């Protein structure tokens, strides 16, 4: 899995539109199967990104915090 090419979406320091909106916009541009890694400095992202991803039906691949930045990996499924 670590071999996949991952598109990084750097939304650190984004209060408006904020990390989830950035992810929604970038996912629209991505191809089915692409993996996006969202970087967020908002701890709320750890909960609200998976909530949306699961509701819409994309795939959550993992979420980890490193030095105050959350790295959230999502695969576009449809």
């Amino acid at each position, binding site marked *: 899995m670590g071999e996949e090419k991952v598109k990084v979406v750097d939304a650190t320091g984004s*209060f*408006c539109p*904020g990390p989830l*909106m*950035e992810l929604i916009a970038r996912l629209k541009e991505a191809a089915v199967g692409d993996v996006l890694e969202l970087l967020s400095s908002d701890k709320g992202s750890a909960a609200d990104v998976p909530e949306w991803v699961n509701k819409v039906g994309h795939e959550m691949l993992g979420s980890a915090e490193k030095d105050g930045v959350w790295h959230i990996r999502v695969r576009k499924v449809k």
Partner: protein
Amino acid sequence: MKILIIGGGMGGTILANNLARRLHEELHSGKARITMLSASERHMYQPGLLYVAVGRMMPDELYRDQRRLLEPGIEFHVDPVAEFNLDQNEVRTEGGKTYAYDVLVIATGSRIFPDAIPGLAENAEFFYTEESAVHMFKRLQEFQGGRVVIAVGVPHKCPMAPLEITFMLHDYFKDRGILDKTQIHYTYPIGRTHSLENVAKWATPEFDRLGISYETLFNMKEVDGKGKVVRSEEGTEAPYDLLISIPAHKGMEVIEKNGLGQSGWIPTDRHRLNMEGRDNVFVLGDTTNLPISKAGSTAHFEADALAENLAALVKIGAPVRDYDGKVFCFIEAGKDRATYAMFTYQNPPSPKPPTKAVHWFKMAYNKLYWASARGLL
């Protein structure tokens, strides 16, 4: 040094004027030269469209002659760029001319792209262009009550517009005496009523107080014009009698066609504002890919930082400051009250309760904008 600015909107105009003041001597002596290429001889104050949509401003109030907004010494041509040849440091225009540069600034803005959602363009009212805002007002006038749905695409410029149009519609229907026959239903792409948490904390109880219903985690998938219903990616439906939408945006087609950035968003360094991988190409305003609000104030503060840096480049050969992510947005909370939000990459906003004074300040700013575009504010 030849500085070439593409786009005569908010970002390009404020940059050009600010720079011309800083480089007064250098422009005179020929050490520096500023050229602007744009797609229109008129400059539109886009925030005014919100008021046009509810019949409180006339479209002709939104325009000024672009040439007259510019400081003397700035060369201006209405000749849109068709090709960016960044390796050759030149652009080619639709008129067939080639312009060479030492420093290029791209500020071509963004546009609504309703075609991404099936059925949206045919069935919704918009207010992000002059024509659509006038059309929307006429539809509002004919409207005699029913269910009004507000649907929002991502990304969009002016992050406050979804809330503002909702509150303004509420007051419009109230003034018309049809509020009791009208249900306003607000939808929003993420899990709260606004991307700014503190703004959402204020807006949600306002919606409750005013009887405006809302649905969060709602991303438009398609509009069924016959069945009069908007369906969301999340699997829900919003039936409507009148659909008002802020569709998802793209950057200009010329940006994407020239391979400068997917969907017309140019990868941009968040502090220096140079295009990633290019030292002499800078990007301003809506067309950056930065994760901050696509707003006139963003373009303005970016232009301030960039003007200082480009002037320093001419004078001492090095930039002097970083853009800190500053954004300032007014938020109209109805027809006579407003508040505002200010934030940077580091500091979140904390908006205050709306007041009449802030609303009147915004009304004054609608006029003061022209001083700001001239670089006087």
